Each structure stands twice: as structure tokens, then as C-alpha cells.
């Protein structure tokens, strides 16, 4: 089982593209074939992942490894998901350190840096829908905005963004303030 877990997540690391959320879809599909992951176990994982910090893919590997093979299983699955970053970044680093001054490499880097801005806005948009809209469709939200929007969450989001952008507040201070506000308003 340890070997199976390691190989499953090793493979997922290489074939899943676009980060944690796309990987979650693959985990159910590949996990049920490789280690007998059930839909119920997957749903538990998706729920508990929300309470754990760090990259989603690592949370997922740890959880699936744990329910299928205990703490050692969790360690093997997590090691597996780390193989692709080490291998692929080594290849990339090799080329990057040689061609860093090349104008085309510079063009590529400049463009993807700017494009990340658009992708981050998308992430913020998708998270807003998941966290702030209380599981309703846009139509339902527009019909009854008072009940279907998590207004305390909106307040925290806006406060946090404004404090950092306008008043140069430290992100860590805003995280702690938000935790306290969450205890008071969202419990």
C-alpha cells in the first residue's frame, strides 16, 4: 500500500496541471482505481482540507495517505507528490541559469509575471464565489442579496485589501485581525 500511495501521488504530481484545484478532480478518479478511494472519503477530504493551511495538493496527499495507510501512508503519499517539483524544477533551473540574459527568456518571464496578475484575480473571484456567496447561484444571490451573501466575510475581505493597499498594513496583522473578527462574526 505504501508503494501504491507513493506511485499514485508521484504520477498525479506529473500529470496534474494548474495547481491544487484541478488536481482534486484527478485524485477521485485516479485514487479510486489505485488505492480504492471512495466518493465518501473524497468528500470528507474536501471538507477537512478547508480547515488545514498550506498547498491544497499536499493537504490532499496527506489525507488520502493517512486514511489508506496511517501516518506512514501519509508520509509516503506526501513524498510522492513532491517528486515532480524536484525533478521538473531541476530541469528548469538548469536551463534558466544558462539562458537568463537571453532576450526571449526575458520576454517569456516578463509576460508570465504580468499574466499571473490576471490569474490571481481569477483565484480571488472563484474563492469569493465559494466563500462569500453561501453556495447559491448568481441568480439566487441577486434575487435575495441580504440572505445569500456572507456579509461579515465581505467586510473582512474588503477591510483586509483596503488596509494593505491604502494604509500599507502588514499582511500578518490583517490575518490576525480577521481571525478575531471571524470568531466574533462568523462563529
Amino acid at each position, binding site marked *: 500500500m505504501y508503494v501504491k500511495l507513493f506511485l499514485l501521488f508521484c504520477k498525479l504530481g*506529473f*500529470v*496534474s*496541471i*494548474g*495547481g*491544487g484545484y484541478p488536481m482534486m478532480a484527478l485524485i477521485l478518479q485516479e485514487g479510486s482505481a489505485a488505492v480504492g478511494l471512495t466518493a465518501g472519503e473524497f468528500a470528507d477530504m474536501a471538507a*477537512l482540507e478547508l*480547515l*488545514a*493551511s*498550506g*498547498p491544497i495538493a499536499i*493537504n490532499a496527499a496527506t*489525507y488520502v495517505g*493517512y*486514511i489508506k495507510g496511517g501516518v506512514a501512508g501519509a508520509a509516503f503519499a506526501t513524498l510522492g507528490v513532491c517528486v*515532480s*517539483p524536484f525533478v521538473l*524544477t531541476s530541469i*528548469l533551473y538548469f536551463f*534558466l541559469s544558462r539562458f537568463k540574459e537571453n*532576450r*526571449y527568456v526575458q*520576454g*517569456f*518571464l516578463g*509576460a*508570465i*509575471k*504580468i499574466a499571473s*496578475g*490576471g*490569474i*490571481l*484575480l*481569477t483565484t480571488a473571484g472563484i*474563492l*469569493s464565489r465559494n*466563500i*462569500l456567496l453561501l453556495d447559491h447561484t448568481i441568480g439566487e444571490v441577486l434575487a435575495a442579496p441580504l440572505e445569500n451573501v*456572507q456579509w461579515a*466575510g465581505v467586510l*473582512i*475581505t*474588503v477591510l*483586509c485589501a483596503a488596509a*494593505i*493597499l491604502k494604509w500599507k498594513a*502588514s*499582511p*500578518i496583522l490583517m*490575518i490576525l*485581525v*480577521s*481571525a478575531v473578527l*471571524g*470568531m466574533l462574526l*462568523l*462563529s
Partner: protein
Amino acid sequence: MEQPSKSQSRKVREIFAAYFFSMLFAFTGGNASLSLLQQQMDDKYHLMDREKVLEFFALGQALPGVISLNAGILIGRDIAGWPGGLAAAAGIIAPAFFGMLFIALTYNYIGGVRYIRGAIQGIRSASIGLILTSGVAIIRLARRRTDWALLVLAFAATMFFGWNILAVILLCGFLGILEAAWKRKGNKPECM
């Protein structure tokens, strides 16, 4: 911003600390750690400036697998070689691994405590704000019309058309290469 006087072992320790700390509060996945990571790497430890952290973060998206881990290994190696890369990886993995185990083991006891759930909900809402500020910081870097075109393209393709992040990043990178080729041809024929 790198201080040459810092010893290697100190750099490695600081890379671990910066990553561990910023990941510890990223409850919506690795993206949420970017603004805290930039603050730790640049303002606190002076290991790497904000824009360079962002550049490696973008590169992390251009590879399959765990994006933050891709970026972290590159950042750690750039600052302090392989020990730095391993320190960054450890700092990324540790909070996610032990945090998830902790939740799995204790959910029946603490999962129902409403104040803990409330605090985590609060931090998750804050993460949206943090990710927004990271996005705005990049928008502020946009100078030319082509930058705006890339921003809008990346946002629209992922948000409204559901394109995969990696495909969009590679497409935008390719457009960047084309632009570099165009500039070379148009503005500097003497370089040929």
C-alpha cells in the same frame, strides 16, 4: 537586496522560517501565501525582492504539480543553492502535512468548536483580500499596452472560459517571446 555578509546557514534557516510562517496562514491554498511571503522575503529577511519572488511564483505555474513547491524550490535554490531549495520545500510541506494530520486526528474533538471554525472562516475571507492585493500589485507593474492585454487575456481566459492555468501561462509566455522577437526586428535592426 541580498546581503552578502549573511552566512549560508543563516540564509537557509531564514528561508525555512519565511516559508513556514507564510504557509501556516494560507488556508485557501498556496496562492494566499504570496503577499505574506513577499513581505517576509523582502522586508523582514532581505533575501529576495518582491518582484523576483513574483517571477519565480509565475514560473511555478508554468510547470505541472504543486505550484508553491515548484516556486519554493526555485526561490530557495536561487538564494542558497540546494540547501535553500530543501529548506523552502520543508517550510512548505511541514505546515500542510502536520496541519492536515492534526485536523484528521482531532476533528471529532475540535472540529465542532464554533470559535475555531469562525476564526478559520475569517482567515479564509482575509485570504481573498490578500490574493486581491497580490493581483493589484501586479497590475501596478503594467506599463505598456501589451501588459494590459496580457492581464485581461489571462483573467478572462481563466475566469470566464475556464482555461487551465498552465495553458494560459504558457500561451502568455509565448506571446512574450513573440513580442521580444518583434521588438528586435522593429527597433534594433543593428543587433542582427
